[in-house]
């Protein structure tokens, strides 16, 4: 399998939803440390919308599915995470516009566009203890693997590993963006909720692909 079609993409998102939903409470607990404790709830609502979009979607087109998922995620009134994640998927959609399947290069381009979409929304930089600290290494690992000609499953595996390492690394960081910024040094020691969600999403992407491969 070296290309991803509409159905593969749908399974990736089903995997992401399952992976996040399983950890809902844990995500809220992480957000209680320095945020408002709603991250798990918001993510669960977002993933519910993702599942609904996947199930009810009819176009069979990659770009429109991504577009719809992005818009659905953004429609969750839950603070910071909706617009960030939503813009990631919408930017991916723009990159995948017109394509019926994504090969490794196209997938790398799509994720890079997604990352750029997130960057465009926030001034947060690597090391600021945000979802970027998981997303940047994930996208870099994915691109490197895909462009090296590895399979899409392998690329997603690398991305998931990198995202998890990135989320883990946020434990050592002090929050400089989002609500957690306000607690300053007290944010050190616990992982960033947004980064943890990114790790769960990539883990789910991978499982979604490989479990049904």
């Amino acid at each position, binding site marked *: 399998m070296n290309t991803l079609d509409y159905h593969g993409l749908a399974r990736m998102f089903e995997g992401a939803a399952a992976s996040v939903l399983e950890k809902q409470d844990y995500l809220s607990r992480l957000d*209680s440390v320095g945020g*408002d*404790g*709603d991250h798990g*709830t*918001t993510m669960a609502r977002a993933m519910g919308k993702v599942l609904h979009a996947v199930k009810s979607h009819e176009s069979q087109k990659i770009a429109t599915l991504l577009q719809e998922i992005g*818009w659905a995620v*953004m*429609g*969750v*009134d*839950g*603070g*910071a995470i*909706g*617009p*960030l994640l*939503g*813009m990631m998927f919408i930017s991916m959609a723009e990159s995948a516009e017109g394509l019926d399947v994504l090969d490794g290069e196209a997938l790398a381009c799509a994720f890079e566009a997604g990352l750029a979409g997130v960057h465009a*929304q*926030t*001034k947060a930089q690597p090391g600021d203890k945000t979802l970027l600290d998981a997303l940047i290494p994930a996208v870099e690992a994915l691109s490197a693997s895909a462009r090296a000609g590895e399979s899409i499953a392998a690329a997603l595996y690398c991305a998931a590993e990198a995202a998890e390492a990135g989320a883990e690394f946020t434990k050592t960081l002090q929050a400089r*963006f*989002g*609500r957690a*910024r*306000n*607690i300053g040094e007290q944010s050190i020691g616990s992982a960033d909720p947004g980064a943890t969600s990114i790790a769960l999403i990539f883990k789910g992407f991978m499982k979604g692909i490989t479990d049904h491969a």
Partner: protein
Amino acid sequence: MTMKKLINAPENLVQELLEGFALAHAGKVTLSDSRLVLRASEKAQDKVAVVTLGGSGHEPALSGFVGEGMLDISVPGEIFAAPGPPKVLEALRTAKRDAGILFIVLNHAGDVLSAKVAGDMAKKEGIRFEQVLTHEDISCAPRNDPENRRGLVGCLPVIKVAGAAAEAGRSLEECAEIARRMEAGMATLAVAVSGATHPSTGEVIAAIDEGTMVVGMGQHGEAGGGTQSLKSADETAEIMLNALLDDIDAKAGDELFVLLNGAGATTLMELYLVLRRVNQLLADKGITLARSLVGEYLTVQEMGGFQMCIGKLDEELKALWDAPCDAPAWTRK
């Protein structure tokens, strides 16, 4: 869960509260199917529209500021959470007009992100708007680091003067300039004496120890200031006022407004004591208390404490402050 609130199922909370809100103020506002709060009687299309967004749970803010001479549309989010970009974009589409839209955004991560995404899309659709960010909380960043200052109750005076300017038919550029002038001369500081509970999760928001108070409390119980022993009304007024005067660099001869915004459980009685002392302190410094506003405008559920917001007024801003308005939370003849 020690919540002592009269609510129904948490997942319907915002929808239900907005229905009740629209019912209570039927002559002033209406609730659209997609949950935008609109003015009951639409403003003329040749006047600038004023739009804002923000989480719920802070009633009467922000939807309580919708009405003649104030906001045209507020986009309420979930409890303490910004509405997502799709709703915000819908509000901008609804308000779309040649005169343009003044888009007032409080500086909180979620609000700013939603506003940015929706704003970028609106721009692509040719919707004309000017965004004004309010960020006047002096507790978590110095004046030269405005990006890290939160937007607290200072949105209210900004909405008031910008809304009055829009109602008077001023151009979008003028309305934005007025809003920014008001914002630039303004500073807010919050103090909390007792915590609250999050109405959907039942979690404690900012537990505050017996005999202490927290200066610099954020709008959702985020820290940002120091815990100190509970002070008298006079002492508290002085601590807060001095910090604020310092921040806006107020001088003898200046004319200021003072807005005391109850957080929820703190009584008007206490706020009146604080205003009395503020007036004495200002008089001592030769500064005029030109306008004041005391009440609950932007609450944090049943939190005890208040926000003190002060700002510089000039003749134009005073006239706009005095202009009539007719919103649920502020009616002026």
